[in-house]
């Protein structure tokens, strides 16, 4: 075997030696507690297989997650085109029957929420950024981390396989509500749903392996001087989202297991007595609403699993590019943690009109609106970070601004839907579709795009083209906004969601024009993503090499020994952290940024307030 371990136990000794050695010369104010942990041994692959395929380097795993998630995202995007084709121009594409339409809706929803956004934020950004940002050499369990990706990969493969089995993929809606989901007559109620459930279970198992890594790395493997309150908000967002996922996915796993049993061996966990085509089925005595509770106990935290990393990342991007410290860091951290905790107590706001005991409505409406307060605080803090800043209006910042607009828009419509009695007329209409796309579709995608432009130089060593980036942004932002802003009004009219066609009711036909417009905008948005792909290819071939730390950021990922960072991240010696990552434009400092690794003795003459 040509692969080998590199035993770095020597390094740590060296660094603590250096510490004691320099203790005499360096002023006391620079003192940082010595290392608690021995150096982490890393496994270095040398063959193609161990270096790029079954790689144990979190950065490579992050990129693998990223690319796989983007692939599913493209599938989801193509499905959305097909749906919009049908809704805007019914009958134009003859092959989109009602069955197919519902299969597209289901797969689109599930792919976008779970396999695209969750995997991309936690698996992609989480793997790449957590070790770098907290100053670790790698995730704490690199082997398990590698397994996590491959489990995810298999889950995606199984999901995609369901497109090709007899009966096609499941068409039960991404919420998979029983009894519908497993009854004959529903598209894909045979192999399709089975593969979906298996794929979800594998996803959960794979995610658990990754999630343990993310959590322990943040909790137990930070570098010297890196306290929790000095972590970039990106890490806080991803960490909290991981905690939510670790506690919410169990409900999904359990409901998937129970539904599989209902489907395969004929138990009746979720299946009441059913009369179908004049015959009473074998099922009886189960509770469909039980499934909904389990599903949304997972499903609501899931929304925040997607949102919290986006919150964290966007905070960092705004701060770096506005050259200003993040406003109210502590408040931001507590808001992230508070939102995370509260998100376990709001799930039934998806079920106001589900037929559950209506008295729950009071409780869940109250908790839901309480969650609006920390969320609003985050928004205030973003715009107050811009205030009196020195804002670079570059592509990254544009995505952040686009995020603020779409997120606030979607957040406000969330207050409509959370407030029980307002939800009654609006639930299950296009208002809901517009709301969740704005808040958890478009807004997080804006952040992803911003993050791609921001960290691309770190990952590849080249800067993406700004002009193309701006075109990409405006086409995507304006297009997406014109899809979803008018769509709310379809909901006001009363058009229910998951309608294959909107025909004949007089007040619905009035919206034909709007539907055509929305579809055209959707095609534009999809097409605009090719600008990014073109930009990436072009940059990789001929792009400008990025200078070290091109954005003049403070956090550790930009202060590695090489750019892009190598395996082990920080070369010979791990960085030592002396401050939070938001010391921008400190009065008296010679640059407008002070990296986290700068010791206090070098900036004594400045007015740093926070460390």
């Amino acid at each position, binding site marked *: 075997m040509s692969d080998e371990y590199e035993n770095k136990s020597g390094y740590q000794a060296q660094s603590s030696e250096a510490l004691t050695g320099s203790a005499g010369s360096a002023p006391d104010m620079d003192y940082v507690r010595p290392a608690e942990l021995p150096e982490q041994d890393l496994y270095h692959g040398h063959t193609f297989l161990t270096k790029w395929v079954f790689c144990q380097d979190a950065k490579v795993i992050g990129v693998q997650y990223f690319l796989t998630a983007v692939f599913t995202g493209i599938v989801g995007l193509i499905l959305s085109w097909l749906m919009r084709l049908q809704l805007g121009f019914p009958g134009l594409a003859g092959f989109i029957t009602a069955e197919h339409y519902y299969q597209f809706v289901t797969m689109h929803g599930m792919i976008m929420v779970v396999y695209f956004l969750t995997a991309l934020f936690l698996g992609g950004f989480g793997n790449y950024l957590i070790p770098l940002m907290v100053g670790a050499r790698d995730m704490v369990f690199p082997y398990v981390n590698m397994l996590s990706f491959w489990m995810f990969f298999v889950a995606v493969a199984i999901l995609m396989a369901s497109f090709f089995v007899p009966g096609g993929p499941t068409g039960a809606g991404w919420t998979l509500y029983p009894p519908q989901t497993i009854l004959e007559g529903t598209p894909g109620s045979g192999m399709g749903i089975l593969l979906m459930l298996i794929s979800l279970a594998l996803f959960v198992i794979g995610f658990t392996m990754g999630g343990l890594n993310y959590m322990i790395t943040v909790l137990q493997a930070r570098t010297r001087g890196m306290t929790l309150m000095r972590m970039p908000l990106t890490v806080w967002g991803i960490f909290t989202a991981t905690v939510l996922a670790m506690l919410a996915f169990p409900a999904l796993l359990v409901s998937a297991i129970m539904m599989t049993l209902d489907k395969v061996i004929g138990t009746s966990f979720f299946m009441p007595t059913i009369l179908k085509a004049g015959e009473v089925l074998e099922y009886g005595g189960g509770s469909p609403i039980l499934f909904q509770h389990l599903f949304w106990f997972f499903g609501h935290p899931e929304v925040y699993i997607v949102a919290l990393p986006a919150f964290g990342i966007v905070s960092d991007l705004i701060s770096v590019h506005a050259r200003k410290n993040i406003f109210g860091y502590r408040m931001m951290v507590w808001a992230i943690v508070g939102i995370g905790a509260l998100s376990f107590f709001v799930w039934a706001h998806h079920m106001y009109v589900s037929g559950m005991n209506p008295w729950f409505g009071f409780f869940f409406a109250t908790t839901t609106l309480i969650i609006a307060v920390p969320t609003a605080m985050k928004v205030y803090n973003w*715009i107050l970070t811009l205030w009196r*800043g*020195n*804002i670079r209006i570059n592509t990254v910042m544009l995505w952040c601004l686009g995020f603020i607009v779409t997120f606030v828009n979607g957040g406000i419509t969330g207050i409509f839907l959370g407030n029980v009695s307002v939800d009654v007329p609006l639930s299950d209409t296009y208002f809901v579709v517009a709301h969740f796309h704005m808040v958890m579709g478009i807004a997080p995608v804006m952040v992803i795009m911003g993050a791609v432009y921001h960290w691309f130089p770190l990952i590849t060593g080249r800067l993406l083209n700004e002009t193309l980036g701006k075109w990409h942004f405006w086409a995507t932002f*304006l297009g997406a906004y014109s899809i979803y802003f008018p769509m709310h009004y379809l909901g006001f009219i009363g058009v229910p969601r998951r309608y294959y066609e909107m025909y004949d009711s007089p007040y619905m036909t009035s919206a034909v024009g709007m539907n055509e417009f929305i579809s055209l905008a959707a095609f534009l948005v999809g097409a605009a993503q090719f600008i990014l792909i073109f930009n990436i290819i072009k940059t990789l071939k001929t792009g400008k090499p990025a200078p070290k730390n091109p954005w003049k950021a403070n956090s550790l990922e930009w202060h590695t020994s090489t750019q892009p960072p190598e395996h082990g991240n920080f070369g010979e010696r791990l960085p030592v952290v002396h401050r939070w990552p938001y010391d921008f434009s400190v009065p008296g400092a010679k640059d407008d940024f002070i990296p986290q690794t700068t010791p206090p003795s070098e900036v004594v003459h400045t007015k740093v307030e926070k460390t």
Partner: protein
Amino acid sequence: MHAGIIFFLVILGSILFHIFTPWYWTDIASNWKGMDDTITLTFWVGGGVFVAVCLFMIYCVFKYSYKEDRKAEYKPEDKKLEKILTVATTLGVAALLAPGLIIWNQYVNVPKNSIEIDVMAWQWGWQYRLPGNDGKLGTTKVVNINDDNPFGINLDDPYGRDDVMVQSDIINLENNRPVKILLRSVDVLHNWYVPQFRAKMDAVPGVVTYYWFEPNKVGEYEVLCAEYCGVGHYAMRGGVEVQDPNSYQEWLGEQETFSDLLAKQNKEIETKKVAKNNSNIEKVIYKEEK
């Protein structure tokens, strides 16, 4: 510069769209005006916040865009401002929540004088049953359902005998008289929703769910299914006709009761039911072709 202008136009466009939109809710035809009012209130408060936040953001983009010689302010924490914002937001949210809860309280408490209507859903259609002279609906069971007993009424339940069976997908309602909709389904989830009445609730197989409203405008309305129930979901329609009391009584008198039905248990019923099923199927096909 141009970025700020475009963002400003987006916000301006949103406001103008809202003012001039030809698409807004249908004229209300029930007692749930409170829902509309709460939406309006939320709209103004929420819309105000949205516009304010975005305008502030645009202002910052204009005022503070990058200049080499400018230095951003350095002020990590501003406890006072944060406190003010938290308190103001909390108050705003509470002000929106209060009317929401008050109306929900009305929604879950059904008035005593309401008529109960059994709305039975299946893939893909509706049928209705009203209590007879005793004012009570008979109990039902899914397994009882057959051609002779389309609602699955328990034969040993005395309350069931005089129930009025509306074997049509259109139900007539008396104007200004509250109705309690009792929903049940024999197969999957459905939702009986008339946009003009604003109210809705899922029909869940295995249990009976309910909601109530009071129609207050004579006219014909369309029932839409608002919970995904399979490939026929989008075509699962029904109807409501709200009538003045006299016409309503007249219509009610013409309907068959369960005992009528039991009395003439013969082949005829069977053919009728088959024909009805066929017409349902035809309807779906017809709509798909359109």
